[in-house]
């Protein structure tokens, strides 16, 4: 089974990173067949985990020399199948976890791509500053992965997404060239290469280091739990708050199904389990402005029909409210063995209508949809728990998710707010963009990765990139460097 050329790639990789960090056998690759969306399983041809910047450069140069395709991976918590390597090399960057520099005077920090989001913030806490984007997987996901996906999170409503918090990066292009993009001092001249790189989902190469913007902790934070008997009241309150001019730090929605799984978990937050929906609303700033804004939020919620609005009275209570929200996705395993989550953005004014449509789609497919999402910016996350052992159910889940995405597109929305396109949302790209637009995206990719070896087959459908059809060699020579046993 083993091709001589492939074997030599694996051997050369071992010489660079050591035996323990080149994986080839079936059993040890099982863990890397899925990311955070485990409905998909793709077997890498092999996995390689460099332990330093220099090793990473050597590895990528070797892959370039041998014309081998690869998929970069951080912590594997992505939710679009973006880090799946289908018979190509999986390049794990999780071992590059050094915080290289923290410069409080210039409000920036430089980190390696494998640094975990929450670990960085733990390190920054004593300086009274933080790195703002806070995806719900912050306890596990890496900054490199956040950059690849242009990750969001609850607090991006006020603070902006990853793109707004990256100053510069040292990028290793798929051909092995090292390039500095952006400006650590925040300046900007010429084309915005950094903007193009952030959110490129691993298709434009990998970051060797990333300089992030630090934000000073606000003097005061107020977090409220608003409890609604009707979903429509919660969405109406959302629109009322945004229309009032208050910009909450976060404005999160959870429906009854979500509330129940969270309350059964170790992260139970004291959410009312008889509520049809709750909103978690945070405002921050000075003591005075926070109190004033929270008062506006409270009265708008009550006017919209909230049963109660409870403001956390201490930090422990506030953290508990947040932990429930952040761990909600992981808690869905209580409902059924398998889980699929979507990530669509709609105009906020259509929330009420879309939620009703999602509910109806679930009903007509005999499925329960749990909604937990960033209401403030209209970023939906419908979750469907199901049993993949039942082929009929799998079919219905697939149909329901397509129907939900179509409804969001029809409402003038988009197919991803923060999870990326990856593999999962590839089929929707042609519904959202016309051929010239997709071709333009390919042209941009060609500037970074003309051979399409970095994360092949993701983001833009293959048929839009005509070069791909002409260049089947983009598939890795190392693709059968496996089955050693």
């Amino acid at each position, binding site marked *: 089974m083993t091709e001589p050329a492939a074997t030599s790639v694996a051997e050369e990789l071992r010489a660079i990173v050591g035996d323990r960090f080149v994986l080839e056998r079936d059993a040890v690759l099982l*863990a890397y067949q899925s*990311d955070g969306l485990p409905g998909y399983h793709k077997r890498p041809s092999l996995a390689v*985990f460099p332990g330093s910047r220099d090793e990473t450069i050597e590895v990528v140069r070797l892959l370039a020399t041998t014309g081998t395709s690869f998929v970069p991976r951080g912590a*594997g*918590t992505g939710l679009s199948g973006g880090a799946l390597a289908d018979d190509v090399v999986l390049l794990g960057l999780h071992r590059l976890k050094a915080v290289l520099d923290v410069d409080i005077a210039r409000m920036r920090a430089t980190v390696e791509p494998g640094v975990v989001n929450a670990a960085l913030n733990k390190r920054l806490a004593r300086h009274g500053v933080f790195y703002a984007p806070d995806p719900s997987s912050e306890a*596990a996901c890496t900054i490199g992965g956040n950059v690849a996906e242009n990750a969001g999170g609850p607090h991006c409503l006020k603070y902006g997404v990853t793109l707004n918090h990256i100053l510069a990066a040292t990028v290793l292009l798929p051909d092995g060239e090292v390039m500095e993009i952006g400006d650590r001092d925040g300046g900007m001249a010429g084309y915005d290469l950094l903007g193009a790189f952030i959110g490129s989902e691993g298709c434009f190469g990998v970051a060797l280091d990333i300089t992030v913007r630090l934000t000073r902790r606000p003097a005061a934070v107020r977090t409220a739990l608003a409890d609604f008997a009707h979903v429509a009241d919660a969405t109406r309150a959302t629109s009322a708050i945004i229309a009032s001019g208050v910009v909450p730090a976060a404005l999160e929605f959870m429906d009854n199904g979500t509330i129940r799984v969270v309350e059964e978990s170790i992260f139970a937050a004291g959410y009312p389990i008889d509520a049809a929906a709750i909103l978690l609303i945070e405002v921050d700033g000075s003591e005075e402005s926070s109190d004033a804004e929270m008062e506006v939020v409270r009265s708008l919620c009550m006017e919209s029909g909230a049963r109660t609005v409870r403001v956390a009275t201490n930090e422990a209570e506030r953290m508990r409210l947040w932990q429930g929200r952040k761990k909600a996705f992981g808690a869905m395993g209580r409902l059924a063995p398998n889980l699929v989550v979507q990530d669509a953005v709609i105009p906020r004014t259509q929330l009420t209508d879309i939620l009703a449509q999602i509910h109806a789609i679930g009903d007509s497919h005999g499925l329960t949809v749990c909604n937990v999402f960033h209401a403030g910016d209209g970023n939906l996350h419908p979750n469907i728990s199901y049993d993949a052992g039942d082929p009929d159910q799998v079919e219905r889940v697939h149909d329901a998710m397509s129907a939900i995405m179509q409804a969001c597109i029809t409402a003038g929305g988009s197919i991803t707010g923060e999870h990326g396109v990856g593999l999962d949302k590839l089929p929707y790209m042609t519904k959202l963009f016309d051929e010239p637009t997709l071709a333009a995206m390919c042209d941009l990719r060609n500037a970074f990765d003309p051979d399409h070896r970095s994360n092949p087959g993701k983001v833009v459908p293959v048929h839009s990139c005509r070069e791909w059809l002409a260049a089947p060699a983009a598939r890795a020579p190392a693709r059968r460097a496996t089955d050693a046993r």
Partner: protein
Amino acid sequence: MTTSTGTPSLHADSPLAREQAGLDACVHCGFCLQACPTYLALEDESDSPRGRIVLMRALLDGSLPASDPDLRQHIDQCLGCRACETACPSGVPYGHLLEATRATMRGGHAPTFASRILLAVFAHRPLMRFAMAMARLLAATPIPTLLLKLPGRLGFGMAMLASTDFPLERAKYVAHGSGENGSAALLLGCVMEGLFTETNRATERVLRRNDYSMIAAPSQGCCGALHAHAGELGAARRLAKRNIAAFEKSGAQYIVTNSAGCGAMMKEYGHLFSGDAEWSQRASDVASRVRDVSELLAAAGPRSGGVIPFAVAYDAPCHLQHAQRITEAPLTVLRAIPGIELVPLDESDQCCGSAGIYNLLEPETSDAVLERKLDRIEASGAALVATGNPGCLMQIGGGLLRADMRARAVHPVDLLDASYAAD
């Protein structure tokens, strides 16, 4: 979409098959990764909770044979610290899954010849007493201190023995109390009674001082925890039955342990006998009476004593923090001691690498995990590290001695006892 769940199992009657619901609860979110000491040390997801769960599923559906060396390696490398359980939103009962996997892989036998011998000794009371008496004799000589720097497990074993020497003075006092807080029978434990005999006596004194009456449960023995962790579920049940009978007979209101690992095991006797018509109820009843000593002390106050002037860091035993979910009680005990300055210990909720007999079976990984712990202790500036489990006491204590660090490991109960003696 494809999945490994729902497919027919090759091990339909296996211990792992009975835990299928626990496997199904994992949705692969990855929130457990950073909680896992072996993932942090080894940097491979096959050594993480969700990676091991993928391997368990493969074992169950037959896509990996039980003899697969990679499967064995990664399952054996798990510490069983269960830190993933307090990180898991879906409530995956990882500890049960691990024990069931090990039982399924090897048909109820421990992984190596050495571990089987060791566990057989633990299960045999006269042998255990003899082994512990020998160890005590050795510990009383200068030999362990002289040899503790030897490389490998011999040197580490010596360091562990040397670390059982209590670093403070043990003054005598007679403990008086009203007994009005209820009656308690102490699980003496194999290692606690063997090598930490004085800590057991101190436990009885501090409980009396806090108005518990102490009752003996003479026919008790090993709790079976080490056997269960290694997948020897049959041996664990035999040992558990003996203890269930012994503590029923004692009639004590509480069964108290000062060893977090034993306490976690006894609290799960109900699960160990689930589906067993004869023993299930009896096991659950006994389990519901089990308390860690820190729980009883915190519930009673505890009473204040004399001054113990030390900077103390608390390191949570995994089987207290993650398995029993007890976080505050030991701190309540330490805060009640005048003079103690509680210093924060970063990653105090992470495993020290002891993990029962893991430090003897998987020395390299154990050392890697311990090194991180010692670094954090050094940074804390503590003179004493308090932790309520014999394995952790010797792992951290031995590690400190080998690293020439000045801090020493002590059981929180010993500090409270010293405080009462100084009153």
